[in-house]
């Protein structure tokens, strides 16, 4: 049984490691083989970028060598897939090699698409890349006062990030002693200030207390770079000195170019996590078109289901689990406090008051991630 994992992010790495341990006897007996193809030899802890943007983490803290995170019985190559031939059970990589498989797990992730909005790339700042987070930090460090707008594209990775960015920004400016010289205005695409109703109910009074202004029903249409004005599809506009953008995301270009799904999101069964129309193609993490958060947490819980099912199919001929939509997200709330949102397809999140213990748990998790992605937590 040849299992091919395409992508070395959170989802792909957890699938490969869980599977490598479950199938250790079969791999030793040469009855199973796990191969991972990734675009990079480095693994980034992406949630850390928010901390980089506010000077709380250094970029080099976010990386580990991908090989060091993988079980030794995984055949790992830095050689991204360029061509998927799912009807032939094979892929072709950038180097020109062809890999055949019996089961494939597609975990290629997502990318920011700031370039889809005219002017946004030039005039906006984003913390979704290392370079962007560092640039934003330097800009905030030099800032002496004025107007900062936060705008949100759809869909985007980590739905909690806009709220966390606002809280972190308030804290950072307060620590610099210039909060009273800065107007922060938070713009959100739908008619409440967060897509999760309970988050909106919790965060709105917090924003009010911190003096963060809110405009809902604001979908960015274009940015006037010269005059520093962001305009919405709904007809309003905001003049800014700094524009922090949580940009629209797409799946990876290779998914789009192989016509595996619109905008790079692969149509996926919400319980089995198989690609629609294929029995031996699994999809994990951001790459799915599932109506769940694009987060490392969702990828983690999905990866556990996929790896347990592939292993059980090999061992007993049947899957043992279904994905129930579980997601667990920390929410940094400023003032060294945090809370969390946990939910699945059946149960909405029930937010608790933010407290310091959750913040320190999150800070610890920033380190524990490396055990988590090895499939040990």
């Amino acid at each position, binding site marked *: 049984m040849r299992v091919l994992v395409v992508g070395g992010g959170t989802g792909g790495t957890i699938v490969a490691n869980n599977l490598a341990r479950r199938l250790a006897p079969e791999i030793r007996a040469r009855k199973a083989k796990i191969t991972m193809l990734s675009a990079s030899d480095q693994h980034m802890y992406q949630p850390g970028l928010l901390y980089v943007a506010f000077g709380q983490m250094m970029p080099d803290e976010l990386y580990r060598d991908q090989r060091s995170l993988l079980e030794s019985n995984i055949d790992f190559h830095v050689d991204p897939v360029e061509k998927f031939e799912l009807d032939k059970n094979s892929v072709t990589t950038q180097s020109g090699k062809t890999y055949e498989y019996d089961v494939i797990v597609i975990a290629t992730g997502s990318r920011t698409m700031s370039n889809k909005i005219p002017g946004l790339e030039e005039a906006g700042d984003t913390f979704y890349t290392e370079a962007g987070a560092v640039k934003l930090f330097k800009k905030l460090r030099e800032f002496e006062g004025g107007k900062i707008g936060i705008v949100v594209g759809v869909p985007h990775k980590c739905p909690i990030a806009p709220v966390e960015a606002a809280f972190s920004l308030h804290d950072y400016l307060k620590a610099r002693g210039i909060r009273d010289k800065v107007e922060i205005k938070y713009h959100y695409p*739908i008619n409440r200030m967060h*897509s*999760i109703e309970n988050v909106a109910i919790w965060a709105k009074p917090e924003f009010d207390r911190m003096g963060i202004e809110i405009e809902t*029903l604001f*979908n960015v249409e274009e940015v006037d770079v010269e005059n520093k004005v962001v305009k919405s599809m*709904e007809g309003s506009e905001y003049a800014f000195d700094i524009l922090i953008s949580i940009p629209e995301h797409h799946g990876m270009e290779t998914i789009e170019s192989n016509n595996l799904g619109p905008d790079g999101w692969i149509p996926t069964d919400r319980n089995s996590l198989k690609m629609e129309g294929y029995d031996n193609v699994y999809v994990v993490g951001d790459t799915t078109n599932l*109506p769940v*958060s694009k987060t490392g947490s969702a990828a983690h819980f999905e990866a556990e289901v996929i790896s347990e099912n592939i292993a059980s199919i090999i061992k007993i001929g049947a899957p043992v689990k279904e994905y129930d939509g579980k997601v667990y997200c920390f929410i940094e709330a400023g003032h060294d406090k945090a809370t969390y949102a946990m*939910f699945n397809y059946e149960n909405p999140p029930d937010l608790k008051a933010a407290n310091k213990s959750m913040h320190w748990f999150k800070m610890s998790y920033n380190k524990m991630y490396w055990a988590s992605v090895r499939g040990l937590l």
Partner: protein
Amino acid sequence: MSEHKIVDACNTYCPGPLMELITYMRQAAVGDTIELLSTDSGTANDVPEWVNKIGHELISSEQVGDVWHLTVRKAK
């Protein structure tokens, strides 16, 4: 040729039905229709408000059992 797409956002809390609709509306061509399925009763108010504000067209809105069916045509 306009397309009709069904988006199943039943039993989802994040990013939620309206965010799902916005995602698929951005993929759609002018004239396409999207039928959003949602078990969140708030969707019945949220979607028409967004559609009116942005200038798309709400074709229909009805509840069948526990599921709301809202059909929207992309107008621009």
